[in-house]
C-alpha cells in the first residue's frame, strides 16, 4: 500500500504548481480580449489614443506572459516523476491533446506575440490587429487542449484499456475532444479569464482615477473592461449551470460534497450557508427539474434507487467489482505468455468490470468521500465573489456612462481591492473541481494512491520547498515589474519612443 504522506505531499506539490500556473493564465486570457478590442477601436477610428491604450495593456500582458510562460511545463515534469503510473496508464489520451497544445497553440502564440510586440511599425494596421486577436485565440486554444485532458480525467470517454500495454488507448478522438465535461470546462475556465482581466483592468484604472491622472485612459479602459467582464461573467454563470448538470451526472459524490448533502432525495435543497437553504433549488440546478433526484453522500455510499427506477451501486458493490477487475488484471498479466485460455478468460472478466477498476484500491469506503469542507466553502466563496464582481462591474459601467465614475473614491478602493478577490474566485473554482473529485486521479479508474510514483517522501518535500521559494521569488518579481509599469502609466512608452529610445 502507498504511504499516505507520499500521496499528500505529491498532491500538495501538484496543487501548488497548478495554482501558481493559474495565477497567470486567466489574466493572459482576459487581457488578450481587452487589448484586442481596444486595438480594434484604434483601427476602426484611427485615433492614436486607442493605440496608446492598447499598447499599455499589451505591456502588462507581456509582463504577465513572460513570468507565466513555461510554468505549465513544471506540471508535465511532475507527471513523469511524481505520477509515473498515472502518466503511463492514461496512454495517448493525455499525450495527444498535450502534443497538439505544444505544437499548434505554442507556436501560434509565439509567432503572433512577436508580431504584436515587434510589429507596430513593421506591418500594416490590419495585420497587426489580426496578430493581436490571434495571440488571444492561440492562448485560448492552448487552454482548450489542457482542459480536454483535464475533462477526460473527470469523465473518461473514447478509450479502451489494453492490459498488455497497461495503457488506455484512444478509440474515438472526437469523443475525447467533444467530451461534454471538457467543452463546458473550457468555456467556464476561459470566460472566467475574461472576468479576471476585466476586474484587473478596472482596478488599475480606478487607481489612476484615485490619483487623478490618465483620466481619459482610465475611463476608456473601464468602459471596455466592464463590458468584456459582464459578458464573461454572465457566460461563466451559464456554463457553471451546465457544469452542475455534468457533475450531477458523472461525479455525483463531488456534487454531494460541494453541497454538504448527506442524505439526498427529490426537491433537494441548495445550501447557501449551513442552516440557510433554498428548498428544491439543488434539484433544479442539478437536473433542471424541481422533482429531480439528487443522491447525497450516504445514498452514494449505501446505494440507492431513484424514483424513476435508476439504481446506484453501493460503495461495497463497486469495491467488489473493482476487486474482481484487479484480480482479473493480475491473472491476465500472470498468464498472458504461458496460458492463453486463462488469459482470455481473465481479459473477459476485466472488460466486464473495467469501469470499476479503481475501486479495487479503495480500502475503507470513507476514502470515497472528498473532504467536504474543502469543497463546500470554496464553492460558496467562488459563487459569492462571482456575484459581487458582476455587481461591481455593472455599477462601475453604469457610473461611467453617467459620467460620474470619477466622484466615488470608495468605489475606486473597492475596485482595487477586488483584484485579489477575482484571483481567489478562480482558485476556488479549481479547488472545487480537483479536491471534489478525490480520491480519483482518473474518475473511477485510478485513485491517487495508485497513480503516484514510488518516491521517497523527503524528495517530494524538498521539491515542494524549492517550488515555494522559486514561485514566491518570481511572483514578487512580476508584481514589482508590473507595479512599476502601472506607476509609469500609458504615456511612458510614448515618451520613450519620442526620445528615440
Amino acid at each position, binding site marked *: *500500500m*502507498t504511504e499516505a504522506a507520499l500521496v499528500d505531499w505529491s498532491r500538495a506539490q501538484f496543487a501548488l504548481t497548478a495554482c501558481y500556473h493559474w495565477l497567470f493564465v486567466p489574466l493572459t486570457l482576459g487581457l488578450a480580449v481587452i487589448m484586442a478590442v481596444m486595438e480594434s477601436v484604434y483601427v476602426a477610428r484611427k485615433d492614436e489614443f486607442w493605440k496608446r491604450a492598447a499598447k499599455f495593456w499589451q*505591456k502588462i500582458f*507581456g*509582463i504577465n506572459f*513572460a*513570468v507565466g*510562460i*513555461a510554468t505549465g*511545463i*513544471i506540471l508535465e*515534469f*511532475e507527471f*513523469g*516523476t511524481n505520477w*509515473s*503510473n498515472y*502518466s*503511463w*496508464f492514461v496512454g495517448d489520451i493525455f499525450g495527444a491533446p498535450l502534443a497538439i497544445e505544444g505544437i499548434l497553440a505554442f507556436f501560434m502564440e509565439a509567432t503572433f506575440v*512577436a*508580431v504584436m*510586440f*515587434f*510589429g507596430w511599425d*513593421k*506591418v500594416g494596421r490590419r495585420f497587426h490587429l489580426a496578430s493581436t486577436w490571434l495571440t488571444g485565440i492561440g492562448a485560448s486554444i492552448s487552454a482548450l487542449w489542457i482542459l480536454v485532458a483535464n475533462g477526460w480525467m473527470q469523465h473518461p470517454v473514447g478509450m479502451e484499456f489494453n*492490459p*498488455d*500495454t*497497461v*495503457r488506455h488507448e484512444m478509440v474515438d478522438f472526437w469523443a475525447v475532444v467533444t467530451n461534454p465535461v471538457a467543452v463546458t470546462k473550457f468555456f467556464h475556465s476561459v470566460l472566467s479569464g475574461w472576468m479576471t482581466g476585466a476586474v484587473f483592468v478596472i482596478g488599475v484604472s480606478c487607481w489612476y482615477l484615485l490619483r487623478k491622472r490618465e483620466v481619459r485612459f482610465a475611463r476608456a479602459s473601464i468602459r471596455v473592461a466592464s463590458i468584456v467582464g459582464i459578458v464573461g461573467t454572465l457566460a461563466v454563470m451559464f456554463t457553471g449551470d451546465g457544469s452542475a448538470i455534468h457533475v450531477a451526472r458523472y461525479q455525483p459524490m463531488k456534487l454531494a460534497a460541494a453541497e454538504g448533502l448527506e442524505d439526498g432525495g427529490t426537491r433537494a435543497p441548495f445550501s447557501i450557508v449551513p442552516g440557510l437553504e433554498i428548498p428544491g433549488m439543488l434539484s433544479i440546478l442539478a437536473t433542471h427539474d424541481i422533482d429531480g433526484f439528487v443522491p447525497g453522500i450516504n445514498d452514494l455510499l449505501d446505494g440507492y434507487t431513484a424514483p424513476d427506477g435508476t439504481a446506484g451501486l453501493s460503495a461495497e458493490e463497486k*469495491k467488489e467489482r473493482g*476487486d474482481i477487475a*484487479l*484480480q482479473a*488484471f*493480475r491473472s491476465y*498479466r500472470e498468464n498472458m505468455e504461458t496460458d492463453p485460455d486463462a488469459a482470455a478468460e481473465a481479459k473477459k472478466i476485466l472488460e466486464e468490470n473495467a469501469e470499476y477498476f479503481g475501486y*479495487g*484500491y*479503495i*480500502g475503507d469506503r470513507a476514502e470515497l468521500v472528498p473532504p467536504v469542507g474543502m469543497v463546500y466553502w470554496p464553492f460558496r466563496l467562488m459563487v459569492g465573489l462571482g456575484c459581487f464582481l458582476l455587481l461591481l462591474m455593472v455599477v462601475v459601467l453604469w457610473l461611467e456612462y453617467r459620467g460620474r465614475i470619477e466622484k466615488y473614491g470608495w468605489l475606486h478602493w473597492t475596485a482595487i481591492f477586488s483584484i485579489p478577490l477575482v484571483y481567489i474566485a478562480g482558485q476556488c473554482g479549481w479547488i472545487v473541481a480537483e479536491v471534489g473529485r478525490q480520491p480519483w486521479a482518473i474518475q473511477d479508474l485510478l485513485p491517487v*494512491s*495508485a497513480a503516484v*510514483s*514510488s*518516491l521517497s517522501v523527503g*524528495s517530494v518535500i*524538498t*521539491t515542494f520547498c*524549492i517550488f515555494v521559494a*522559486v514561485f514566491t521569488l*518570481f511572483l514578487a*518579481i512580476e508584481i514589482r*515589474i508590473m507595479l512599476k*509599469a502601472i506607476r509609469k502609466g500609458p504615456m511612458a*512608452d510614448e515618451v*520613450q519612443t519620442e526620445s528615440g*529610445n
Partner: protein
Amino acid sequence: MPADSGFVRCLGKIWHLYADGFRDMTWGRPLWGLIILKLVILFAVLRVFFFQPVLAGKTDGEKSDHVGSELIDRAGPATYKE
C-alpha cells in the same frame, strides 16, 4: 526564380522583424532576462537534478511491466483471492 526571391524576401522580413524587435527592446529586455533565468532553473536545475522521469530509459515493454507490477502491488489483499 521570382517565386524563390519572393520567399527569400519574406524570410528576410521575418528575420528583420525579430532582429529589430529584440535590438530595440526597452522594457522587454529585463523580461527576456527573466524568461531565460526561469528556463535555466527549469531545465538545467529542476529537470536534471529533481525531475527525472521514473520510466525514462525503459523500453515500452519494460514500462508496461513496471506499471503493471505497481498497479497489482498497490491493490488491497482482496486482489489476491484465488
